[in-house]
């Protein structure tokens, strides 16, 4: 047998084994999780509540314009109102989805959140998360209650807005009718409740952010407490 053939016979299995080892090492590299920024979901969550709150505010303002019309609702006012109702439906999706997940997963939701926070590499931050765990849990419990209350108020708020819109689309002169006036009143009350819960959720999230801010940084930015 020639030297070339022998080399081929020896080298081929070695190369294949090499490929095997390489594939294993590449796979294990892919398993490493990325570094998770401490509290990274808090600003994101806050942003989602701000977007939803603005949409609620805009819908309520539009409802006020509708309710101040005399006798019947002009087409332009009704079109604007219908657009705000649609906007609210879309811009509340993320907020409502978070609420649903929080209610469905219960304590597991917070445990996972806490787990992510505890995975940070900075030992100072890990210690901070550990030290503030009871306060963070309290804030989370308050957010869970606020979310639940907000969800309970959102359904009748949305239903009342749709009722007003549908009634006025059918008959713009029905503005003064009792059913429409009742729906306007309900929408105002429930909308104010939803907005209030969203604003309190934002404050609670700010409190959580402050808890997770290292002392020297919070002192310099004035966010302590």
């Amino acid at each position, binding site marked *: *047998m020639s030297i070339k053939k*022998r080399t081929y*016979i020896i080298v*081929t*299995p070695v190369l*294949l*084994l090499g*490929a*095997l080892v390489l*594939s*294993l090492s*590449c*796979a*294990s590299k*892919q*398993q490493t*999780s*990325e570094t998770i920024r401490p509290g990274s979901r808090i600003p994101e969550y806050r942003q989602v509540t701000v977007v939803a709150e603005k949409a609620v505010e805009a819908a309520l303002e539009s409802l006020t314009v509708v309710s101040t019309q005399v006798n019947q609702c002009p087409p332009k006012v009704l079109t604007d109102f*219908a657009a705000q109702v*649609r906007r609210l*439906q*879309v811009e509340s*999706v*993320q907020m*409502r*989805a*978070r*609420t*649903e*997940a929080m209610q*469905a*997963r219960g304590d*597991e*939701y917070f445990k*996972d*959140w806490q787990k*992510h926070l505890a995975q940070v590499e900075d030992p100072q931050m890990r210690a901070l998360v550990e030290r503030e765990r009871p306060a963070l849990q309290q804030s989370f419990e308050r957010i869970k209650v606020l979310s639940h209350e907000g969800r309970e108020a959102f359904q009748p708020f949305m239903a009342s807005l*749709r*009722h007003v819109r*549908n009634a006025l*689309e*059918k008959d713009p002169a029905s503005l003064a009718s009792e059913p429409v006036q009742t729906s306007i009143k309900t929408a105002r009350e429930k909308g104010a409740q939803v907005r209030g819960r969203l604003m309190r959720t934002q404050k609670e999230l700010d409190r959580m952010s402050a808890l997770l801010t290292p002392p020297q940084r919070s002192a310099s930015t004035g966010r302590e407490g």
Partner: protein
Amino acid sequence: MNINIRKYWYLLALVLCFVLLPLAGQLVPVQTSAGAQRSAMGAVRSQVTALKNATRTAPNFTSGGSGHDLLWQQFQSLRSAFGELLQTLNSRQVSDGANEFAELNGALDIIQEAFNNYQNDVDSGRSPNVALRDLCHVLYQASGVWLQEFNKDCSRLRVGF
């Protein structure tokens, strides 16, 4: 004789390598499912595009009901595609992304409520065409928001890597 024995050794080594290579893949779920995850993610994105396209064509249907049915089918296909993606996740992604996937699923439930709203509006006397235009608008916008969140979560959890 000597050459024959070497040939057998060579064949044995070759067979072992070919047997071990796929086995090694099975031991590491990320490796084997990365392709499946990419394919499942692609299916979800395509389905969002299909739903968005349906929201543009549905108002042209002469009957509001047919447009609604088309949208419903496309939306359910999106839900199926998302469900299939969840099946391809490895245990780390399932554990690390439990909240995110619960939120994405919750968002689909909420978007689906738009179909109930359509039906209730039509039942209470709203024009089917106006109600359908509203449904299309909400589905188009909401599915876009959902996709943004989906992409962000998949990237963070390294789905398909």
